[in-house]
């Protein structure tokens, strides 16, 4: 049977996590179809058909899918799912929102946040903030899965899948979109960045967070992240949060500035290739996972680091 992957997008561009999810689908084995449900989303469909390993792109273009409302999206996917053995979505806030709805309506379990595919019915997923890895086997006829995108490589581009237009499902009429406030940034997307600079509560204020973290991120071409404590204190917006219940990242280089390293934060970044910690507390737990640590006052060390990077 074929596998259905639900593309994550904003009607203009295909989100990077979709490529990693296609790779996970490929490991299950079977023909991979990619669903683009949106409104005026032709550019996304064009990007989707170029993803290597995708046999067919299904496009549902309708005003009711413009903002990815879970109730409407789930109804569409439930109708399609009966023709598939697996339904996969990236484990971003979109997939986490609509996919459990799909699973419940199909009367099947969802397997959340998988990090490995053992076989067509057996998967590995983290529990307890990533301190435990559980290998689980599904007994359901359709496997509904969200994918931790950092655990899989991105699929290559260069494919040329067929594109089929499909009709919309009946609108659920349970919810409507009111507004959005998106964080504007020219920096790379947190989930896909090669380098991330994250700040913690030790930054002390929103102004200092910006004044210290942003120049270092600019110097490194990095995305900016934050600990829960920094977000709760209002130093950084919510979508910067890295951790168990925020974003899970795995960049080549993660620089933790003034972050003590609670297990909930480590859950979101400990798969980074190289971790650097800057903290004045020598005993901070972050040093137990850091490859390189500097014990010192971040307000001195970070400007020195920016200067040292400038000399290279």
């Amino acid at each position, binding site marked *: 049977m074929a596998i259905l992957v639900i593309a994550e997008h904003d009607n203009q561009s295909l989100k990077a996590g979709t490529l990693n999810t296609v790779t996970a689908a490929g490991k299950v084995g079977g023909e991979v179809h990619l669903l683009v449900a949106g409104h005026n989303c032709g550019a996304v469909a064009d990007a989707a058909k170029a993803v290597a390993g995708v046999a067919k792109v299904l496009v549902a273009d309708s005003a009711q899918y413009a903002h990815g409302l879970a109730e409407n999206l789930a109804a569409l996917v439930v109708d399609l799912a009966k023709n598939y053995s697996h339904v996969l979505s990236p484990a971003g806030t979109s997939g986490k929102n609509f996919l459990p709805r799909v699973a*419940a309506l199909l009367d099947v379990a*969802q397997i*959340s946040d998988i990090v490995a595919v053992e076989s067509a019915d057996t998967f590995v997923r983290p529990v307890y903030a990533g301190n435990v890895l559980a*290998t689980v086997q599904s*007994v359901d006829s359709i496997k509904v899965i969200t994918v931790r995108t950092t655990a899989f490589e991105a699929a290559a581009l260069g494919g040329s899948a067929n594109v089929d237009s499909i009709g919309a499902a009946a609108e*659920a009429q349970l919810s409507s979109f009111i507004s959005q406030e998106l964080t504007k940034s020219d920096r790379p997307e947190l989930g896909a960045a090669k380098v991330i600079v994250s700040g913690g509560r030790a930054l002390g204020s929103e102004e200092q967070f910006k004044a210290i973290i942003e120049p270092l991120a600019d110097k490194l071409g990095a995305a900016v992240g934050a600990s829960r404590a920094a977000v709760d204190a209002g130093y950084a917006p919510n979508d910067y949060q890295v951790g168990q*219940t925020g974003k899970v990242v795995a960049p080549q280089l993660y620089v933790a500035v003034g972050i003590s390293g609670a297990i909930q934060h480590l859950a979101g970044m400990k798969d980074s290739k190289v971790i650097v910690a800057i903290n004045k507390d020598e005993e901070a737990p972050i040093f137990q996972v850091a490859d390189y640590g500097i014990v010192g006052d971040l307000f001195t060390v970070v400007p020195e680091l920016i200067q040292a*990077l400038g000399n*290279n």
Partner: protein
Amino acid sequence: MKVLVAVKRVVDYNVKVRVKADGTGVDIANVKMSMNPFDEIAVEEAVRLKEAGKVSEVVAVSLGVKQCEETLRTALAMGADRAIHVETDAELQPLAVAKLLKAVAEKEQPQLMILGKQAIDDDANQTGQMVAALLGWGQGTFASKVDLAAETVDVTREVDGGLETVKLRLPAVVTTDLRLNEPRYVKLPNIMAAKKKPLDKLTVEALGVDVTPRLKTLKVAEPAKRSAGIKVANAAELVAKLKNEAKVL
């Protein structure tokens, strides 16, 4: 308006769990258990809605072993009016929980159901969405603001790019994110008063729900440990290491 709040008993967030030596599960004997932190936020939100005069009754519900009573007493001490315990020793996975909550909702007829967005033990992030689907209700997940009116609720949601606000027709399901509120500290008199509040018992059988697990856990293991690296003296040394040793610059 009645609000139903679901609360789960989980290993306390400060406990670092250990895998059993035979790899069959996680050792939770003799570890501290608490209310799931996101569910505390859910109870707090429901109680604040009552204090604001928008809600007339807050009913807390928990599913699972006998000791869930303690979790429900905490919810009552925070300000819930009464509690329902669906007592069972069976393993309950999110789909089964959603079916049980649906059955409870059909008896109680709430206009709003508030749940934590995820439990910090299985990290599934499914139950609220599933119960909304089964009831045919709208859902406002990962809420950082809830604005309740007579027939609708506006929910501001924490999403990957920032914030998004949706309007839901009531009845509806809301799941809480971290920034929705800061749960109150429960004082001793409230704990004493909570002991007198009603706590009703229900069974899985009486609710007529098949809770058979759909996922079989074959094994659990600890992930590969990261070993601590080295401390460097200054920024210049760090840059040299990142460049020449780690080769990430």
